[in-house]
């Protein structure tokens, strides 16, 4: 028991070290491969780490998307760390990009045809700009060739200061509207 507890602590520490060194989002699957542990165990370790980070004396937090996880600073330190904030975050969003981004954030992954349909206007330029800013990402549609699906990126979470997309206000409600 003592032993197990000791082991668990070391593993949380190892995951923290890994996320720190890697920097970018990493999949739970990859983590379990690196430490040669079951995915459920890896999942558990991530949850333990997330819990620990909630303490007031911790400056870091975990953010999640698509079974990946990334270590970031907490939102409270945004102003003091201003010099380290991406240039892309400092530009304001225009009405058209807000409209498009909201659709993708709440309803993504979705295709351009769907986005155009809801907005009633061709969105290809807006999507291109959001992709270049890194606030959305596109992935090939598994069902159709040459059609992309658009979904929120990790940078969008960082831009909005939330740890997962489901934290958006009234996420479930809006998700079910359309």
């Amino acid at each position: 028991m003592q032993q197990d507890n000791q082991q668990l602590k070391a593993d949380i520490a190892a995951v923290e070290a890994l996320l720190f060194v890697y920097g970018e989002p990493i999949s739970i699957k990859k983590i379990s491969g690196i430490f040669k542990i079951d995915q459920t165990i890896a999942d558990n370790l991530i949850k333990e780490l997330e819990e620990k980070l909630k303490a007031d004396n911790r400056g870091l937090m975990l953010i999640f998307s698509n079974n990946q996880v990334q270590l970031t600073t907490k939102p409270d330190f945004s102003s003091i760390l201003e010099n380290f904030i991406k240039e892309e975050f400092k530009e304001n969003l225009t009405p058209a990009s807000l409209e498009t981004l909201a659709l993708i954030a709440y309803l993504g992954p979705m295709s351009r045809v769907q986005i155009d349909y809801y907005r009633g206007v061709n969105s290809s330029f807006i999507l291109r700009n959001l992709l270049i800013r890194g606030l959305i990402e596109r992935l090939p549609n598994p069902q159709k060739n040459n059609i992309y699906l658009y979904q929120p990126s990790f940078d969008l979470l960082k831009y909005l200061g939330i740890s997962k997309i489901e934290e958006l206000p009234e996420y479930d409600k809006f998700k079910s509207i359309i």
Partner: protein
Amino acid sequence: MNNYELKIEQFSGPIEKLLELIEGKKMEITELNLAEVTADFLNYLKQVEKIEPRLLADFVVVAAKLLLIKSKALLPNLRLSDDEEEDIKDFENRLKNYQQFKPAINYLKNLSEQNKFLISRPLFAGRPTIFYPSKNLEINELYKMIKGIFETFNQLQNETKIIKPSLITLEEKIEEIMERLNTDLHGFTSTSNFSDGASADSRGQVNFNDLTNKKIRSEIVVLFLALLHLLARQSIKIEQKKGFSDIIINKN
């Protein structure tokens, strides 16, 4: 972002605009109310046309739907096809969905304005650079890639160029109709622009078929919009003997 993209970014879509008009009048989304705001929407169309003509196409599509709804309201005997009826229902639903979704856009706006950004570390920060090529790294592969990039890129550039070689503006067409009606009052003059076979009598009356004779589809659409505009302004009167027959336009 080039100038064109910058301008486009400032416009919400036509759905958003239409909703704004309806909500501005504190109305619900119903067929009747949509017919009510048609004139306002057409007015706004002129603004879009002036500022960013390349967005016009998408606004015209919505305008066309509104006109269909308006026609239905004005002409109770007008029978629409099943497709058209379904299209109107679908359009109404889209508007309702959008209306319900709108608060989400505001939530996103508020979050983004809080400036509570999270910061992460770059990939392998502080690690020394070590040369790691990969098996698939070959000259030919790079060549294929650069060719691919420019093919895609040129396609994109072309897409933006294809948009309407010559734009037909609503204002132009409104003037055209009015001029035509005025001209016809005094008979044809040598300065008349209408040499494309239009015939009219001399009572300030023109037939829609004559106006649209030999014209391309998009121009006909704009002409029809112009017609409804003038109707809304009560500058003209129109008359149609039966469904699909020619529309006779008279000066008011």
